[in-house]
């Protein structure tokens, strides 16, 4: 039992990146810059063209939800304001063509706030 615990401790010391890869902090830090730009409550959309985090398609939206709570983030572009997580130069154009969204605020770190063109 002591050996097992010691092995586990060794794994933490030898392979810290394996554990740190599960940490949500860097995504949280990315999205939380939007906190001052969004209303304090409400439902906001989320779209992303970035690769999945740890092969999980919901991880990006969930990390945005965690950072921006108590606002509610939904996997949709059908809300008045939409959080866009961008990894491509053509995101703005695609968002306009596909969802009718226009840029509202660009935080400069791949995180943008779009709004409906009709608003």
């Amino acid at each position, binding site marked *: *039992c*002591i050996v*097992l*615990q*010691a*092995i*586990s*401790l060794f794994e*933490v*010391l030898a392979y*810290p990146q394996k*554990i*740190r890869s*599960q*940490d*949500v*902090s860097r995504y*949280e830090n990315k999205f939380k810059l939007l906190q001052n730009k969004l209303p*304090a*409550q409400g*439902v906001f959309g989320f779209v992303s063209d970035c690769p999945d985090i740890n092969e999980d398609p*919901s991880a990006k939206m*969930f*990390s945005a*939800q*965690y950072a921006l*709570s*108590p606002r*509610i983030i*939904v996997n949709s572009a059908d809300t008045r304001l939409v959080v866009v997580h961008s990894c491509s130069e053509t995101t703005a154009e695609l968002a306009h063509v596909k969802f009718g969204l226009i840029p509202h605020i660009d935080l400069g770190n791949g995180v943008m706030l779009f709004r409906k063109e009709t608003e």
Partner: protein
Amino acid sequence: MIFLLCLAFLAPIIAGYSVTYTLLPLQKPSFHYYVLKTTLTLGVGCGITSCSYFLILSLFGPAKIYLVMNDVISGLAFIALFLYFFRFREKLSYPAISEDISTNGKVQQILTLGFIAALICSIGNAILRSSMLPHGSWDAWTIWNLRARFLYRGGSHWTDTFSTFLAPHHPDYPLLIPAQIARFWQFIGKETQVVPAIIAICFVYSTAGLLVSAIFMLRSRSQGLLAGLVLLGTPYYLIIGISQLADIPLGFFILATLVLISFQDRMSGSPGISLLAGIMAGFACWTKNEGLLFLLTVIIARLAIIFFDADRKNKVGQMTCFVAGIAPILLILLYYKVHFAPSNDIFAGQEIQTVIGRLMDLSRYVQITKALLVFASQTIPVASLLIIYPFYAGIQLENNSKKAVITLLIILFLMCSGYFAIYVISPYNLGWHLETSLPRLLMQLWPSVIFIYFLMVNTPEEMVSKQE
């Protein structure tokens, strides 16, 4: 902030200690009894202040003044309770829970050193992992810490946490952990990840302390140290524990209930133990939905024992006290489920035909069994030791432990059956559901499995004297 953090601990400690001190019978002062009382104090205090925070929030709103007033008033009430019963305490006496068992000094020394080594490794592991994962693992930041943020940040809109838009985040889950985290944040006036990390570590080591001290009192010191070694030597237990999930706190309350049930069978004249067992079972229900299944299994097991017991009147009295302990917490849970929580994702929207179809599908049973075997194969070092050990040490059920052990075995069997059944009827992709939850569910029961195991096997002293 450190001063306010320490101050925030005051209300749970006062509440927990008053209740534990009042309900636990007087025993000869000993280190292991103090450890037991301390661990129960932390659990009870956490549960009481979590419930009161939720009630304050739902009845009066999120203003900090109500929280402070609640802490002061309830703190004074609990101190008054403590002082009132303190006058009577010395007049009451109960038979000792623990027996004087001759100890083998050398065996104990080796086990003590081994336990300390495991403890130091685990503490180092816990601190390092907590610092690398300040927000915990996936379920921590998508469920428990997320809900704490809604309670704390939401202000008058705190009920947004129950929105059906948040269905993937299980908004129906009870609030013991999120409410406790939000309570600390509100008290400190700042949202800090130190709080959920401390709460997680407290439950990990309270469970270990409770297990060691309980086996210490019911069997022997060496046996207690062995039990502690097995628990702390299970790396997955620690990993789950410091991930800021609710599974280990649930495991703590399950273990506490089973420990107190074992005590009550030795001290039939003490209603306080049964009452405290009910309180712990109630807090298990307030921690996770699995707590409700646990409560059901405890009631079924105790009713079965009552039915076959010659001393039925006494057992009925114990059951009455147990129900009296659960009642206030179940009322709070009922209020929460009726007025706030949406339907549970496992059961909501499931048609009876679909459920029956899944129950009749044998491939699901095979898949679940395979997943259990895969998990067991990953725990071969510890599992194989535990399987071989009784052949070497022997098993001996003491007369005054027999009913308790039978009760505990029935509860464990029913819990495992319940978990199995939930997987069978699960509306999710079964492979995904098993992969993401089975290890955690088993860790909820692991401390209790170790407890029952070491109640049954011979102690090192009994083993040595048998060989001699």
